[in-house]
C-alpha cells in the first residue's frame, strides 16, 4: 500500500516537472526553420521589416529573400558577433528578437487606473472650498491641474496637493475628510478639462490673506470669495 502511494507520488512529480520543463526547452526549437536566399513568406517579411526598422536594410518588404536581404543579414550578423552565414537560423532569429506571435505569458492590465486621482482632488476641493459656489469648487480643482502642467510646480497630482505650504486645508489636516458628492463632481469636471479660471495657478481669499506677494499676481477671475491669479 505504502509503495503504491510512493510510486504514485513519484509519477505525479515527474509529470509535473515534465510539464514545466517541456515547454521551456523543447517547444521553442520546434518552431524555428532556417531562412535562406530564396525563402519566401511571412517570416521573411518579418525579418526584412525588422532589419529595415533597425537600419540594416533599405529594400522592399516583399517577403522574398533576395540579394539585398542576404547582404543585410550578413551585415547584421557581423555587427552582432554571429557567424556571417547570410542565413537566418535560431541565433540570428533570437538576436533580431523575432517574437512568437501569440502573447502567451502576457497578462493584460487589470484593475482600475488611479492615474486620475479623482478622490484626492475632491478631498482638496472639499477642504479648501466647501461652501463656495459649484463653479468655485471646479476652479480650485482646475488650479491643481494647471499646477501639474506648470514648470514651477510638481509634475503629479499628489505632488501638487501635498506640496508643503501649498494648500491650507492640506496643512492643517482638514483635507482628510470624506468629500461630498459636489466636490467629487467638481473634481471630475476639473480633471476633464473644464477650467473656469482661464489658466490660474494661485488663488486666495482677500479677507483672510496676509501674504503681500500674492497681491502682486495678475488676477484672472473672481469666483465667490476667491481671487484666481496667475
Amino acid at each position, binding site marked *: 500500500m505504502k509503495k503504491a502511494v510512493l510510486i504514485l507520488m513519484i509519477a505525479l512529480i515527474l509529470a509535473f516537472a515534465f510539464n514545466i520543463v517541456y515547454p521551456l526547452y523543447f517547444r521553442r526549437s520546434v518552431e524555428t526553420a532556417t531562412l535562406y536566399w530564396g525563402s519566401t513568406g511571412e517570416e521573411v517579411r518579418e525579418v526584412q*521589416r*525588422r532589419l529595415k*526598422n*533597425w*537600419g540594416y536594410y533599405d529594400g522592399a*518588404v516583399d517577403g522574398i529573400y533576395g540579394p539585398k536581404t542576404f547582404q543585410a543579414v550578413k551585415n547584421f550578423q557581423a555587427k552582432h558577433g554571429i557567424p556571417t552565414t547570410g542565413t537566418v537560423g535560431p541565433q540570428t532569429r*533570437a*538576436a*533580431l*528578437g523575432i*517574437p512568437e*506571435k501569440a*502573447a502567451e*505569458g*502576457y*497578462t*493584460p*492590465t*487589470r*484593475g*482600475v*487606473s*488611479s*492615474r486620475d*486621482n479623482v*478622490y*484626492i482632488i475632491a478631498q482638496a476641493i472639499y477642504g479648501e472650498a466647501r461652501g463656495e459656489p*459649484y*463653479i468655485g469648487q*471646479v476652479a480650485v480643482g482646475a488650479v491643481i491641474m494647471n499646477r501639474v*502642467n*506648470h*514648470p514651477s510646480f510638481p509634475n*503629479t497630482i*499628489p*505632488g501638487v*496637493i*501635498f506640496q*508643503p505650504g501649498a494648500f491650507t486645508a*492640506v*496643512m492643517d*489636516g482638514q483635507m*482628510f*475628510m*470624506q468629500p461630498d*458628492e459636489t466636490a467629487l*463632481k467638481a473634481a*471630475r*469636471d476639473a480633471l*476633464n*478639462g*473644464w*477650467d*473656469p479660471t*482661464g489658466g*490660474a495657478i494661485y488663488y486666495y481669499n482677500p479677507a483672510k490673506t496676509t501674504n503681500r506677494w500674492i497681491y502682486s499676481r*495678475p488676477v*484672472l*477671475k*473672481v469666483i465667490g470669495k476667491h481671487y484666481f491669479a496667475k
Partner: protein
Amino acid sequence: MDRQRAVTFVLLLALVAVGVWGYDQYRQKNDYHVFLQNQYHRMFYELIDHVETIEADLAKAMVVDSPQQNLVLYSDVWRQAFSAQEKLNQLPISHLTLSNTSKFLTQVGDYGYSLTRKNADGTPVSADDWSNLEELHNYAGYLAVELQKLRASVQEKNISLGDLTREGGYIFARASDNLPNREFTRIEQEMVDYPTLIYDGPFSEHIQDIKPKGLVGDNIDYQRAEQVARGFLKGVDIQNIKKIGNGNGDIKTYGLEVLTEGGNRIYMDISRKGGHVVWMLNQRDVDSVNISPTRAVELAKKFLEQNGYKNMVPTYSMRYDNISVINFAYSEKDVVIYTDLIKVKVALDNGEIVGFEAEGYLKAHHSRKLPEPKLTADQAGERISMRLETGREPRLALIPLENKDEVLCYEFRGTFGGDDFLVYINALTGKEERILKLLRSENGTLTI
C-alpha cells in the same frame, strides 16, 4: 501661614506654566503629525502613479517596433522605476517587508537602462528580452493592483499613519512573496555620469502663452454676450442672467451665471473677441438613465452643428454620474485633427447638454494646409509590430508633439494580449511617432 500661601501660589503658577507649555507641545505635535502624514500620502499616491506608468510602458514596449520609440519607453521605465523606488523607501513601513518590492523596482529600472543602451548601440530587443519584459510587465501589473487595493482601503477608512504602516506592511509582504523567482542581470551603471543640466521640459512658459488661433470675429460687449448665451442655451427656461466677473486668461471672457426657472445654475464664459462660448457647466444632478450612450453622441453632435461646429467627429467618451462626456475632434478631408478638441457633456436622463468645453478648439483651430501623405496605408502598416493585431483600416490624423509641432500620421488601432493600443505612424516619413495604451478607467470607451 504666609509661607504656605506663597508655596501654593508658586505651585499654581508652575501648574499653569506647565499647562501652557503642554498645550503648545501638543499643538506642535499635531502640526508635525499632519505634515508627516501629508508627506507619506504624497509618497504613496505618487508610488502608485509610477508603478502604473511602468506597467503601461512595459505593455507598450511589447508592441513597439522602432528604435526611437523603444528609446523613449525604456528611458521612461528607467526614470519611473528610480522615482518609485525612492518613494517606496520613504513610506513608514519596515525595510524588511519592502525589500523585495524595492529590489523589483531596481531591477526594472536597471533593465530599462540596459535596454536603452542596447538600443543606442543599434541592437534590437532579443527574444530573451521579450520574455523578461513580459514577466516584468506582469509583476508590475500585479503590484499596481495590490497598491490600488491599499489605496481603496486608505480612502474608505480615512486611514491614519499607524494604519498605513500596518495595512501597507501586509500588502507589501504578500507582494514580495509573489515576486517572480528569477534574477535579472544587474548591469554596471555609470550613475556618476548623470548629466548635471536639468532640462526644463516642454512646458516652458513662453510656449504656454500661445495666442489663441481660433478666435475669429469682432470684439463684443456684455449685452451681446447675453444674447449669445440665450442662443446657446436654446430650450432652457431662463429666469435671469447675471454677470459674474470677467476672465483675463489667454482668452479674455465675460463670465455669466444663468438662473433657470427650475432653480438650476448654469455657468458660462464667453470670449470678448468673437463672442464664442469658451465653456459652459450646468450644475444639475442627473438621477436616472433613459437614453443610450449612442443616442447621447448623436445629440451632442447635433448640438455642435446647431452652434456652428461642423465636421466634428467623436473620438472618446466617458460615463460618470449618469452623464456622458464626449470628446470631439475637428475633421478635415477625412483627417482627424486632434488638437482642435471640444468636449460635450450630455445628461443621460433627458438628453440635455449640461457641459461644453472648447478651449482646445479655440486655441488651436485655424485653416491649415494639410500635407499629402507620402506613404500608403499598407506601407505604414509595415512599420507596425507583428505582435500587434490590427483589425480595421487605419485613418489619417494630425497629432501634436511635445514641441507643439503637428504631424500627419496614420492611426492604427490594435490589440495585444487583451490590451488595446493606438499606434501613430508618420505618413510622410514612416517614423513611429507615438503609441498610446488605452486605460481602463470608469466606463471610458473609445469611439473610433
